[in-house]
């Protein structure tokens, strides 16, 4: 892509998203340094100044200052910083005298890069899975139901009468999981089933899209996919008339 075309696209992306808050944050930071030792990246890197949260927003401010006119090398540097040097945990914001939300700006930078087609490959494939199957691991509906069935069968031998109620209308709690459980940690599902059963909970698990409560698209700022995922889960809860959605954490 020609740099000028890219800069135009970047500015078009940023224009509606750089609001009053981001602008103020970028401007009023006094570089007081209070955020430095709140960050585990900074502490773990032997107090490397590069890891100070306030330093990590320089890519965003630089992109805005240059009006989007940045080269591939710059984008790569920004990528390394916002993906490899920040967990967006917001601990720095808790200690910032001005309450500057660094993680918000990192997220915006990630979203900007995503809009330019740049994002971690693993997350890109998770997003592809979301679109194809509604869950990050690409588990098909058949496999999902299969997993639930054998989880139930295995547990029945341990607990009398244990059921994993699928799509039970009118249950109080709709339970959703991290799709990794279905693939790698099925015992997690069984443990919850056991607890729910012993507690006598009125619960159910949805069979269709929405049972994966992870939202990895959020990490790259793909808000469109994020929204769809949340909508899926709420659509299932509404269909099943569940009062609460319990997530696996």
């Amino acid at each position: 892509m020609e740099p000028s075309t890219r800069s135009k696209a970047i500015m078009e992306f940023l224009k509606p998203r750089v609001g009053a808050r981001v602008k103020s944050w970028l401007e009023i930071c006094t570089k007081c340094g209070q955020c430095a030792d709140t960050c585990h990246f900074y502490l773990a890197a032997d107090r490397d100044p590069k890891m100070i949260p306030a330093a990590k927003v320089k890519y965003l401010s630089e992109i805005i200052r240059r009006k989007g006119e940045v080269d591939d090398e710059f984008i790569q540097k920004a990528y390394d910083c916002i993906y490899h040097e920040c967990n967006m945990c917001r601990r720095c914001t808790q200690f910032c005298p001005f309450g500057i939300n660094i993680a918000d700006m990192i997220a915006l930078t990630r979203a900007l890069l995503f809009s330019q087609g740049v994002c971690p490959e693993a997350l890109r494939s998770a997003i592809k899975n979301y679109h194809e199957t509604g869950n990050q691991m690409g588990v098909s509906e058949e496999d999902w139901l299969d997993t639930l069935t054998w989880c139930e069968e295995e547990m029945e031998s341990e607990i009398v009468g244990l059921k994993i109620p699928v799509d039970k209308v009118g249950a109080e709690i709709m339970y959703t999981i991290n799709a990794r459980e279905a693939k790698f940690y099925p015992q997690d599902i069984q443990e919850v089933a056991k607890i729910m059963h012993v507690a006598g909970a009125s619960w159910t698990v949805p069979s269709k899209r929405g049972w994966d409560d992870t939202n990895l698209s959020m990490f790259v700022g793909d808000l469109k996919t994020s929204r769809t995922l949340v909508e899926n889960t709420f659509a299932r809860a509404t269909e099943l008339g569940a009062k609460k959605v319990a997530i696996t954490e």
Partner: protein
Amino acid sequence: MELFHDYLDQGIIKLSKKVTEPTTLQDPCNVVRSGGLAAKNRHVAEMLSEDFRPMDNQGNYNYCCGGGGGAIPMGGEMRKQRMKCGKIKAEQIRATGAKIVLVPCHNCIDQIRDLNKEYDLGIKAVHFKEIIAHNMIVPEHMIPKEEDEEEKA
């Protein structure tokens, strides 16, 4: 997590035993910092443990484990940085002397298990649900008797 708290707190789920080994607790950013569940998180941990040892900064101002913000699902490309920045969490865990780390988050648990290997912490990271499912009292009528006997036999 909140549900488990309420079940345990209200006695809907009763425990047959508590974890005897020293435990500590991770405060996942999205459950605690963003979810506002610090107190309940800790309460669950305390209800499950005999020897609960809070970390420095336990609660709302705890450090991230280093696996958040997509770091775990990013997979291999992030591994090096993930292990490096997790040093703080590893040190926190080591300082408590705990053998069991209670981790109510899939991201954190993967990260902390990796940290355990990387930094030789000698700990086990477990979900609440694992402990609860293991240590709770299952009512008599739900226990399949024949199988028990078969096993004993």
